[in-house]
């Protein structure tokens, strides 16, 4: 379980996350919904130590990682994989080398085993035919699938997704959603997704939390969320229709 308490992050005097608290339960898929620029990516990066935080605590499996020693924090954060918004693939390496990178760098397996594992995970994300290709020659959806294979090759217990459908057309976006569900079901990974994509919430969400004004303002299960009149429906999902109405459309 991941417990986030009173997490505060500020940049240049602007508070992005303001005493945010959130629990991620094992085996579940939690979707954090929020407008663009509200601090969804900041939340994931702060939990994983990629950004400095001004206050609060993050416990991964009962161990506080923000104040832990570098080696302890590394060990516990190592239980979490993340799919970055841009994928973060190394453009100097082929897809195969990208996926194999964490295993090779940390010398976690012999080369023959690495080959087998890379091929297995590439197959899981439907990318087995593109292993020799370089990232610049991949489409946006393929790049994200390659990054997903790299994120899961170390068998993480938790997996974070940062806006996995951003910039993708509806059909590619749907494919990514299917893959996320497949990875969750086949590997049993606890999943945290941050997005503004309501379709993704409907397809993947079990629990849904709303991020607004720096903290979680509501958390409900999917069935409740999709009921018109519910808190998250009113605060987020109905906003599109309201904006259209206000502008006379």
């Amino acid at each position, binding site marked *: 379980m991941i417990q986030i308490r009173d997490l505060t992050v500020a940049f240049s005097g602007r508070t992005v996350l303001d005493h945010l608290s959130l629990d991620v339960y094992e085996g579940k898929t939690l979707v954090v919904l929020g407008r663009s620029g509200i601090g969804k990516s900041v939340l994931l*990066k702060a939990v*994983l*130590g*990629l950004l400095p935080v001004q206050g609060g605590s993050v416990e991964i499996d009962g161990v506080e990682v923000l104040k832990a020693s570098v080696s302890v924090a*590394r060990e516990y*954060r*190592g239980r979490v*994989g*993340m799919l*970055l*918004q*841009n*994928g*973060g*693939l*190394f*453009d100097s390496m082929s897809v195969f080398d990208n996926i194999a*990178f*964490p295993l090779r*760098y*940390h010398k976690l397996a012999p080369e023959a085993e690495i080959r087998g594992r890379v091929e297995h995970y590439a197959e899981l994300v439907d990318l087995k035919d593109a292993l020799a290709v370089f990232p610049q020659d991949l489409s946006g959806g393929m790049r994200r699938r390659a*990054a997903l294979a*790299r*994120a899961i090759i*170390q068998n993480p217990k938790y997996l974070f997704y940062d806006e996995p459908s951003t910039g993708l057309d509806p059909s590619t976006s749907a494919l990514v959603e299917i893959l996320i569900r497949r990875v969750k079901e086949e590997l049993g990974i606890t999943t945290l997704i941050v997005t503004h994509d309501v379709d993704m919430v409907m397809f993947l969400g079990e629990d849904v939390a709303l991020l607004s004004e720096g903290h979680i303002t509501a958390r409900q299960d999917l069935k409740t969320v999709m009921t018109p009149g519910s808190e998250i429906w009113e605060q987020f999902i109905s906003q599109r229709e309201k904006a259209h109405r206000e502008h006379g459309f």
Partner: protein
Amino acid sequence: MSSSPFSSGDFLDKLVTEIYLGPMASEWKAVRSTLIRTWGDFFRALAVGPFPWRETGRQFVRVINDGWVTVVAGSVVQGIFVMWLAGYYGKMFGAYIWVGSVTAYAVFREFAVLMTSVLFAGRIGTAFTVEIGSMQMSEQIAAMSLMNVDPQLYLTVPRVVASLIALPIFTAFSFGIAILSSWLLMAFFWDMSAQIFFQNAFMFTPATLLTNSLIRAFVIGFTVALNAVALGFHRCAGAEDLGRSTTKSIVLNLFSVLLIDLLLGILFTTLSSGLRG
């Protein structure tokens, strides 16, 4: 109480940050803290290890491959330039037989290390800044941290170590190319024999001149690479930021080259004259 700005202890700082840099003063402060942080991180990563032998080897090959054409071209021009000046005035005063000595001394003492370092800062240093900056923009550095890979150990250490070995090699290479090209031109225009040219060339060039230049190249290679990588790690949110970082990288490194060359040149000269008594 003093009203003159010259009496103020921090006059130079004010001159640079408020008058010269103006609105860029706060930006420069941010750059300064990035440089300090990266220099610190470099030594920390080196101490913590493990040393990235494989990646360092890869970067060394890459630096040599990327830089050698520029160094050869620069060295040919440098040799011709020094020889032309020495030959022109040598002939004017009837002393052109000493052109080889003047050329060798100028090249070994100053021109080879200075010219090679400037070209290195332009060709390799800026490439480091742009490469790391674009890796930051495309979240490759964040991805490394997520995989428990220390970006300083994987990106900074190999580039810096490769550079501090490569620049002295380039400088030694430049000595040879510059002297050879100057003799070729001398033979072509003034019909000077190889025997006379090379006999005189090394008459006044002690071995310490060579080692001093190589030590300067070593220090410059280290500084230029670390500054360039540090500016790649500087806040980089888009193409405009990357352009600014690259400009800062080349300007800072050119000043660093001149300053290190001057200071170490003075130091070595003072030490050698002190040793001679």
